[in-house]
Every structure is written in C-alpha cells, then in structure tokens.
C-alpha cells in the first residue's frame, strides 16, 4: 500500500517566504486525509508544493514509497500523483467524456488518439462519479457542480496511487457532496492515498480518517478527527470564532456550529 511521508515540509511562492511550513506526517493508502484551516492558512499552497508547480518553492521532503516526490520528473509524477485544482476552467468545446479523456494524457504520446482502453477507463471514471449521463454533453452546457464531477472523473482516469484535491466539495449540492466524500472513502479503501483540502467539515459526513489543521501557514495539529476537532478550543482559536463541533455518536457524521459557544 502506498505511503506518503512528509518531513518538515514547507512551500511558498518565493524561496525566502514559506506560505506553509512545519508539515510532518505520514499518510497511507486506505485513508482519507483532510487539510483544514482558515482562508489563507496555506492549504492550497501545500498541495501545489507537493506537485512542485512552476513558481512554487519547497523545503523539507515528501517521499512516496521512499522515492522523493520533489525530484521526480513530470511524467513520472503524473503517473503516480493526480491533482484537482480548486476551480479549473471549463475546457470549452470539449464534451464531458473528452474532458475525462484528458486525464489519460500521461499514459500516451503527445498527439496519439485515445485507445479503446482509454475510453473504457474514462467511461468507468464517469460512472464512478455518477455522471455517465453527461458523457456526450458539452462542458459549457452543464452546471458548475457537474463540471466538478467531470473534472474529478478526469483525475480518476489518470489511475494514480495518490490523489490531491483542492476543495473538491465546493460548489456541490448536499447530495453530490455526500456522494463525493463516499467516493473518496471508497477510493482510499482500494489503497489510494487521498489528501483533500476542505472548508466544510460537516459536508463530508465522517469521511476523514486523518486531519491536518493549518493556521497562519503553520501545521498546528495532525491526527484522528476526534483528537483535532474535540481538542478544547483548538478550532475556536484557529477560526477566531466560537466553534461547536459534535458527533452524535462515535463514527457518525460531524456537525459544526460556527459562531456558537460551548
């Protein structure tokens, strides 16, 4: 089972200033890890740092099954780690299935056509996110939430060991959000490492197995959800508002009441 190990990892937009730092954690396939924290706490930068995007500088190390991620070349990384940004533009002029097929790019040459195998994988991925019915629709004719699902399917069709998702649940309705986190749990059960940022603890049910809490660019806590969420005043301090976080029974969905004191 794949394993992603962070040691004093830090990332930022200039070599001197790290937007997020102090991340040391070990996350394994089979678990969903959520990155939470207020706006500007460095959640997105953390994911971008792992991907070593142009213009992003990083320190410390991330290793995937003992290979350092930062020294992987692009195509090696693309074969092992997939990434879903916060709000990718709609690739207009393409249908949903063509958009999903974009995810097969790392597995073929830069101009070759899609094989029957590629199409099968893409259709499977659309099916997994519950968007099969959109296959032949143009992406500019479907809603923002539906495009979100299509992009998620594109990421799945990349068939990687690790999937990084930046706010995957944003712009999804209750039903699709629940379906998304269920899907991420299922993927984790198949041994895939899932690392997702989110602002909405309550929208995820109890899909998280681990939580990384960021505050002002520092990793503040990492552990089981109950340890982080129920730690006295921790979330209230970080979000600078009284927070009540509850679970009606162990293992049930998390409920969050921002703005109300204990």
């Amino acid at each position, binding site marked *: 089972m794949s394993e992603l190990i962070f040691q004093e990892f830090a990332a930022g937009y200039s070599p001197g200033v790290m937007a997020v730092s102090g991340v040391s954690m070990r996350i394994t396939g089979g678990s969903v890890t959520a990155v939470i924290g207020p706006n500007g706490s460095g959640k997105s930068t953390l994911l971008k740092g792992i991907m070593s995007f142009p*213009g992003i500088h990083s320190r410390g190390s991330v290793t995937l099954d003992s290979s350092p991620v930062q020294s992987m070349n692009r195509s090696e990384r693309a074969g092992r780690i997939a990434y879903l940004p916060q709000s*990718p533009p709609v690739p*207009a*002029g393409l249908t949903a299935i063509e958009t999903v097929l974009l995810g097969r790019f790392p597995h073929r040459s830069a101009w070759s056509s899609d094989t029957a195998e590629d199409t099968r994988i893409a259709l499977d991925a659309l099916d997994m996110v519950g968007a099969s019915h959109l296959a032949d629709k143009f992406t500019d004719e479907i809603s923002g939430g539906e495009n979100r699902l299509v992009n998620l399917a594109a990421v799945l069709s990349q068939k990687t060991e690790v999937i990084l998702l930046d706010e995957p649940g944003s712009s999804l309705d209750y039903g699709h959000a629940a379906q998304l986190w269920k899907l991420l749990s299922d993927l984790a059960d198949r041994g895939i490492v899932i690392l997702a940022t989110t602002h909405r603890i309550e929208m995820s049910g109890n899909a998280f197995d681990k939580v990384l809490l960021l505050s002002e660019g520092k990793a503040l806590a990492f552990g089981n959800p109950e340890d982080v969420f129920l730690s006295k005043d921790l979330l209230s301090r970080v979000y600078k508002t009284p927070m009540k976080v509850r679970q009606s029974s162990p293992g049930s969905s998390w409920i969050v009441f921002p703005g109300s004191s204990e």
Partner: protein
Amino acid sequence: MKRTLISLVVLAVTGIALSLATGPLGLNAPGQVILFLRLPRILLAIAAGASLAVSGCILQAVLRNPLATPYTLGISAGAGVTAGFIILSGISLPIFLVYLSGTAGALAASTLTWFIAGRSQRDHSGLILAGVTVNLLGASVLLLIEYMSPASRLVEIIRWMMGDLAIAGYRRVLFLLPFLVAGMVPAIMRTGTLNQFLTATEMAESRGVNTVRERLLLLIAAAVLAGGAVGAVGPIGFVGLIVPHTMRRLVGGDYRRLLPLSALGGAVLMLWADIFSRVVISPAELPIGVILSLLGGPFFLYLLVKKPRL
C-alpha cells in the same frame, strides 16, 4: 467529422480548378500564365491560409481566449512598421528582403510581447495585454510613418497593408515553405498538449506537461507561421479567427482533429477569397485583405455577441 473533411476536400479541389480557370489567359502563352501566375498563386493561398489558421488555432488554446488571433501577439503591427519603414525609405531592396523584413518585424513584435508579458509571469491574460500594447505601439509608429510619407509611397504602404496574392513565379511560395514546415511540424506533434492547455495550467502540469516550455514552443510556432504568412502575403486579418471557430463548430474542440482541419479550412478560405477578389470588380482585383476584413469584422462581432465555445 468525415462529412466536414470531405466537404473541405471538395471545396479545395473545386477552388483550385476554378482558380486555375479564372481570368483572361493571354493569347500568346496560356500555358505560361497557368504555370507561372495561377499555380504559384494557388500554392501561396493554400500555404498562407493554412499557416494563419493554424497560428490562430494554437493561440486560442495557449492564451485560452476565443478572440485570440495571430495579431494578438502584435504580429501585424511589427510587420506593418518594418514594411512601412522600408517603403518610406525608398531603399530598393530585392523583393525577397522586403518579405523577409515583414517577417522579421512580425517576429520582433511577438518577441517584444513575450518580454513585456514577462512581468506577469506570461500567463494568458498577461500575454494578451502585452500583445494589445505592442499592437497599439506599432499602429502609432505606422501612423507616424504614413504621415511622413510622400503621397506615392503612402499609397504603396496602404496597398501593402491590404494583402496581396498576385505573384509571378514561385519565389514567395518557396519563401513561405520553411516557415510553414517549422511552425506546422511542432504544432501537429503537440495537438494532445494543446488540449491540455484548454484546462487549468496546473492540471496540465500535473499530467506531465512542462507548461512553461510548451507554451513558449507553441507561441514560437504560432509566431513563425503567422510571421511567414505576413511576410509573403501582407498582414491579412481574420483567417486565424474565422477558420478555427468555424471548424470548432463543425468538429468540436479536440485539437487532434481541430488543428489539421483548420489548416485545410484556412487553405480553402484563402483560395475562395482569392477567386472572389479576382472576379468581383473584374478585370481589376480587389485586395484579398479587403475581402477578408469585410468577412471578418461581422464574424468577430458575431463571436462577441454569441459567446463562442473556445
């Protein structure tokens, strides 16, 4: 897709036949007219049309802007300024060097655009704004050149800006050939990469595309294609806008289909525009740039109103 391809091939073949047959043949040497006037003209129209269409096609993906044309990079302004300057100065250069100067100006302008955009990390909006700046700059310099020109030269400059396919012999076709190959080959090898540029840069990057290098390579290919065409036939507008959009409607946005079909579509549009330019006010010729602008202006407006698919 098949129907579009067949229609384009039919239009191309009939266009070539009609173009060969259009116009007076001269009593003495009809064979010479066809071989040294009509045929090179047809080849030039095909090569320039394909170049401009593919150039626009590439830029619309890389700049992620449906209204991008080869001129978004400042190419027409650059070519206009150098050609205008040469015509004004009255230096009698070999014709080959006049073409070359148009191309050099076009490439210089797109390089300038690239460096101005450097401050904004050369993302799509930064490049577009830089291109607009370079175009404005070029237009004002050209205006100055026109103001300083004596009337006879002014006519020449304006006539050059309108585009011209009237040639004798194969020199201009041969001139354009290396640009066509140098731009077209890398573009066709990157049609899958162009598809990746339709989505977020970071998504493309995460799928293994070296976005910085590929963007530069594709911009160079687009500039080389348009620069060569501008040098050979003058700054003819709108082929790079009309063709990719029409093709997108017909065959969708997948660049593995779109790019080759746009090349064919560009050739067809240019061929037919050239035929019209020769018959509309026959026996005189209407400059091809005038016809394409008359076609392109309303089309541009249509795109603005209709919110096109990229």
